[in-house]
């Protein structure tokens, strides 16, 4: 590339000319050092100078993707593909972007073409596997995941994809084995600190203490706390490292278990194990999921304080329905908006109690539904509050997030709204969950379709369907 790009430095009078290839290299260096904004500006200048240069367009698309500007990213890479329709790299990347945008047909087409052009590209195989998983075409998804692993056995992402596919189908043995790759995917490296002790193998550890690490999200921690009694039978000396949000709830429910929430406060230990590793060590199968429910209870003092408060703040004689509609960005596709719960909000004789935390709780400001809504996000200090509130509700309607697990662990009725392609622990098709007997699952009938889910819940609610607690 010899065509020079005209660059404007901050002083508008000065123009520096550099070859485009060099500009792209600098932009890549910016990206590598986390200077996304600078990279984007540089690439914009490059595209102004060379509007049809596919490399510049593609690179700008990747940068836009990293900034979360998915639509824009797709547009840029589409332009690059228009110039160079046989670049498998572009096709492989746009496959992933389309997938994130929920444009699955286009994603499948691009991914298939990428794989066709470069049958040895493990990443393209993986991307295509992910798209098929979103469409619940599990045979195809498994096939591509396995081919990706064959092509690059040391790459963690296809292994984790395979694990999730197998677990989703209930194939626990192989699934849990593959699930061990989860700490090796690039995005997950920071989930565990560097530890100079061995990872526990499940064998009895009568002497030294075992450090359990509450890894993954809050929901995972709540789900896997059920293994504590089983672990304690093998390792009498346990300690748990977990976040401050969960610490008090764990301490209340496991009073003999020392808990700490700062890594530098850890006691000495002989071995460690992430909580999410326990199902494999326990050799859990669908039929042997430990489900001694409830294994989490609210603090009685807090529960009665919230009982009194809710008695005052909520209409009498109305069913109390907790709601949570948004979670962290990952996993994708699981969050909805409060507004999309409108059919539930239109019901008589129920009142809504929002347990929503973080930015999404701002949405209550625009709620004008018929059912009274009490938003408690600002009054929830940690999960002991959430548990104490749940203890006083008839039901919680929630997306796949920590509150679903907490309600399930407490044996409270939880109606869980799931995306078409759910997280592995919710399995396929069934309305119930072997993990949580009081959970009822409401699944999207097709990707992206929340309306039928909400409509089903509204129908079930208005029919006054049993909201049995254990």
């Amino acid at each position, binding site marked *: 590339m010899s065509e020079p790009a005209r660059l404007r430095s901050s002083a508008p009078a000065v123009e520096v000319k550099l070859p485009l290839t060099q500009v792209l290299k600098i932009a890549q260096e910016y990206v590598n050092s986390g200077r996304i904004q600078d990279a984007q500006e540089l690439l914009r200048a490059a595209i102004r100078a060379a509007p049809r240069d596919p490399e510049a367009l593609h690179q700008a698309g990747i940068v836009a993707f990293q900034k979360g500007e998915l639509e824009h990213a797709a547009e840029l890479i589409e332009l690059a593909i228009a110039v160079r329709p046989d670049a498998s790299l572009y096709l492989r990347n746009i496959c992933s972007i389309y997938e994130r945008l929920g444009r699955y047909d286009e994603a499948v087409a691009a991914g298939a073409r990428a794989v066709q052009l470069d049958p040895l590209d493990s990443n393209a195989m993986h991307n295509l596997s992910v798209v098929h998983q979103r469409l619940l075409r599990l045979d195809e998804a498994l096939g591509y995941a396995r081919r990706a692993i064959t092509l690059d056995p040391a790459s963690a992402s296809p292994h984790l994809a395979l694990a999730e596919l197998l677990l989703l189908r209930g194939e626990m043995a192989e699934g849990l084995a593959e699930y061990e790759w989860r700490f090796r995917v690039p995005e997950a490296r920071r989930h565990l600190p560097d530890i100079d002790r061995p990872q526990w193998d499940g064998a009895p550890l009568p002497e030294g203490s075992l450090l359990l690490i509450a890894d993954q999200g809050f929901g995972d921690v709540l789900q896997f706390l059920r293994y504590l009694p089983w672990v304690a039978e093998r390792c009498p000396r346990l300690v748990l490292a977990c976040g401050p949000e969960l610490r008090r709830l764990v301490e209340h429910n496991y009073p003999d278990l020392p808990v700490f929430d700062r890594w530098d406060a850890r006691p000495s230990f002989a071995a460690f194990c992430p909580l999410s590793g326990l199902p494999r060590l326990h050799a859990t199968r669908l039929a042997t999921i430990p489900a001694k429910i409830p294994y989490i209870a609210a603090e009685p003092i807090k529960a009665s304080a919230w009982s009194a408060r809710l008695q*005052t*703040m909520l*209409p*009498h*004689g*109305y069913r109390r329905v907790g709601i949570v509609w948004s979670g962290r960005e990952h996993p994708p596709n699981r969050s909805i908006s409060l507004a999309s719960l409108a059919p539930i909000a239109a019901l*008589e004789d129920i009142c809504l109690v929002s347990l929503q935390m973080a930015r999404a*709780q*701002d949405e*209550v*400001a*625009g*709620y*004008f*539904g*018929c059912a*009274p*809504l*009490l*938003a*408690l*996000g*600002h*009054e929830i200090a940690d999960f002991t509050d959430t548990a104490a509130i749940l203890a006083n509700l008839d039901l919680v309607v929630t997306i796949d997030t920590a509150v679903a697990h907490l309600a399930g662990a407490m044996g409270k009725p939880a109606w869980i709204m799931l995306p078409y392609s759910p997280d592995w622990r919710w399995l396929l098709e069934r309305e119930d969950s072997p993990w949580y007997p009081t959970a009822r699952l409401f699944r999207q009938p097709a990707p992206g379709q929340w309306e039928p889910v909400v409509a089903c819940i509204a129908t079930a609610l208005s029919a006054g369907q049993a909201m049995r607690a254990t």
Partner: protein
Amino acid sequence: MSVPIPMVRPNDRPRDPDRCACGSGLRHARCCGLDLDEWPPAAQAEHLPPLVERAIQALRAGGGEAAETLCVAVLELAPTSLDALRLLYQIRKTGGLRQASEALIRRVVALAPNDVGAALELGLLLMDTGRLAEAEIHARNSVRLAPDIAQAHNLLAMVLTEAHKPQFGEHHYRMALRLSGTRDPILLANLAWNLKNQGRMAEARQLYEESAALSPDVPQTLLGWARLEEADRNFEAAARVLDRAETRFPSDARFKLTRAVLLGRQHRYEEALAVLATIASRNGESGLAAHELLEKGALLDRIGRPDEAFAAFEAGKRQGREIGGNRYYAQEAELLIGRLKAFFTAGRLSILPRARVLAEAPQPIFILGFPRSGTTLVEQILSAHPRIAAGDELPIIGEITATLPRLFESPLSYPDALAELWMADHADGLDELRDYYLRKVRQLGVMQKVGASRFTDKMPLNETHLGLIALLFPEAPLIHVIRHPLDVVLSTFSHDLTHGFFCAYELETVARHYLLVMDLVEHYRREMTLRYLPVRYETIIDDQEASVRRMLAFIGESFDQNCLNFHENHRYARTASYAQVAEKLYDRSRFRYRRYLRHLEPVVPMLRPIIERLGYTVDEVP
């Protein structure tokens, strides 16, 4: 809130650029530009009093111009000469120059704070221009200065009656009667009006009868009496009083307006319009006054002539702006709302205390909403319940925002003065404010209803202070009445209202204030846990029983059939909606905007986002 009102009154004399804009006739530097610190009251040349004396004599002899010239001359030399100021005030007042009169009498009050006469004049002037909070300050001051003068109590009583505190007003009317030592017919009529505002119709009627017997030719008395009968749905009696008044005062337009209102309530719209037409023809070019125009618009609306109705509303509001000098205090509104948003944040609210709930005290229910949203209807429905008393538009929250800095000994104003709650000696300040509120409620006689344990406070725009209310009464139900924004804006524009920083004088300023307040409510809802229930006016019309059941459940009371027959609730609502809530539910006000869409075009774009957020649409007439 107190806002200075600059009057725009066309001066009939050619403008002198040096003269003060207020119209006093003085130079600006000797009038509104005067620094009183540089001109202490004592700084008067000794030779000037004779000039003032000459001016007084000139005025008595009918030489207004000469008197005026003399006063201006004296004030040029000694701008703080009280006698000259008082005299020029009289001249300007007689000449109808309100802005000048106000500037002059304010100067007298500032220079002579113990002058009861001046305090009374200023209080009256402020009351007449709707600035009740400030009027109350001067009226109270005149009672302090002269507790034995009947006029002082009379003024305070008038202000309190207008300011939604008729129970306090009654106290002062009775004081005035006692001090005057006679059954003064004017005082009797004033007290009658006060009692009418408390819904004590029979007592009021008796007093009007007594007053009219003593002094049959006082138009104000007959006017008040006629309006009492009209409000009490005693239409024939009202007509009789009007007949009697009109034989005595055939050219008094106020009786014609009242007649038109009366005919309107009897659904005799064409006749009502004909009565208004006689006022217009008599007035010639100047046509109808603001109130008459608004009534004309309301009548035209009822007979399905929206374009003419809107033209009448517009003309009425134009008069309110041009002659009344009313305008929206946009900057003040934005400043206050900005400060409220900056103060009431989740972070601060999580560490601010809340007032303790007193289980044994009467429990408030706050009915919130923009004026003309249906708050009166909701109060009328709820107060038909045996356990709920009607508090009406209680001015107490507004008063608390004004007195809070003083109570908290704070150098800051509301809301920032709430920062005193961090101080050891004001840590229980919210309990103190809660008690202040409950004490006023008690004094206002709100809880007279036997068996009631709750009461409503439906002061419109109390939602501006939602944060403060939730600090004082963290468990009180907050019922926010929502109505199609275009209906709210249209209805506010077609009524004479001063709520909301005088926003009601232009369509666009109503919309602007509506947006500011709705945005503020959303802010509060984002930042704090509230026991908040939005209730749609339209839903109450569509499905009254379901709405009533929901509201009562939300409040924590059992359902009561009386709430469905609220129009039989014989309580008289003081506000502009009184005639409407005495009828069964009707749906002619629902989506009224559709027939006015053409006229509402200027505000549709700015309101569209909130219309959609509230779940409404903008529709043409079906």
